[in-house]
């Protein structure tokens, strides 16, 4: 529902839960004809988690997805895209095979939402790069890393992006 003209906003009450915010996001997507968002059974418990806001939060509608993904990551959840729509799963339960393959340039452009579970490839930083150290680096961000000359990185888009940026700086 909108009143007047100009950008729409949503108001998240101070006692809102994570599930409430995801519900708002889902409603905004439904308006655009996108299939509904589903919750994995184990991840559903996280939806009941109160955000603990001190006051109600007024969000421009354009930032709802960004905010929702930030909150999902905070709760240890990721979004897996599929032909039937998006599913929210616990990071600990998602399998590498469920990741969406994306180009690393899209990640660097910020075109992929933060909690999307993705996989990308990236060249190893060089012949002197230490495989064990790169794995330790990836692990610190919760990203799975495999390969030697060509690295395969799998994890939440935000963390994969940070790792790609770091690899390019090494």
């Amino acid at each position, binding site marked *: 529902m909108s009143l007047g003209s100009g950008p729409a906003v949503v108001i998240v009450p101070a006692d809102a839960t994570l599930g409430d915010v995801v519900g708002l996001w889902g409603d905004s997507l439904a308006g655009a004809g996108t299939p509904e968002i589903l919750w994995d059974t184990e991840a559903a418990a996280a939806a009941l988690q109160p955000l603990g806001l001190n006051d109600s939060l007024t969000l421009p509608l354009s930032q709802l997805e960004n905010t929702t993904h930030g*909150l999902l990551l905070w709760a240890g959840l990721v979004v897996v895209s599929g032909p039937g729509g998006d599913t929210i799963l616990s990071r600990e339960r998602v399998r590498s095979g469920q990741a969406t393959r994306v180009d690393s340039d899209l990640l660097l452009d*910020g075109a992929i939402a933060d909690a999307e579970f993705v996989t990308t490839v990236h060249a190893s930083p060089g012949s002197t790069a230490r495989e064990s150290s790169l794995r330790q680096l990836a692990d610190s961000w919760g990203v799975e890393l495999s390969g030697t000359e060509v690295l395969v990185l799998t994890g939440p888009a935000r963390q994969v992006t940070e790792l790609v940026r770091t690899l390019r700086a090494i």
Partner: protein
Amino acid sequence: MKFSQLTLACLAAVAVSASPARAGDFLSFPIPEDALVIPAVTGSSEDASIGDLIALYSAATGQFCVMDEETRNIAQNTKISSQPGEKLAIAPDRVQVTFEHMLASQGFALEVLTHTQPRLFAVKSFYSRARQTIKSAARLIASDEVSKAAAHPAMFFTTVVQLEGVDARQVANSMRQMVADPNTTMVLSTSQSSIVLTASGPALLELHNTLAAIQAAHAQQAEAARQAQARQARALQGAGRPGTSGV
């Protein structure tokens, strides 16, 4: 399983008073109009908690903080300070760094969840299960911008330092002994010439400066050795000429 829609009003044409921070400009924080007043600490059970401080900060700056239940309980049961003190008025341009310093001193970290206004942060406690995820929130910062990170004691950053003529692995191994908490600090040699550092803002600057000092000392040693070699070469060359002393 799906969740039913929450009925919330959608309002339109709300004027956004502050322009949003640039994407990626995650170290841009609004300066409140007024000083932030921290209540006096008397040593009583009524003293303000970290939870109260977070509420004050949010109200003053318009930045929102979320916490899981475990962290919220810890925040409510942790006083701002154990040392008695007078009421404190924090100047507007010092609110962010003071807030983060108080969080960090009581074992809390601040994670950026969104970049655009109104911003959202997550507060995590080093004494909760979320401790292990604090490092995963580190944001990459360019090596030449590490000084900006130093003003954020509750936030975590990563930077890559390139070394020349120095064995990065050896340096990283020796520096690793300086790391008090591997959950929050990392010194990693990723190649022969590069080291990746992860730490809170001020700690990152210290590690970065230590590497710079090591690099500078090595460069001095290398230059001194080069000059000594050059002198020796000149001396040998002079001794080999006909008619020089000793012949």
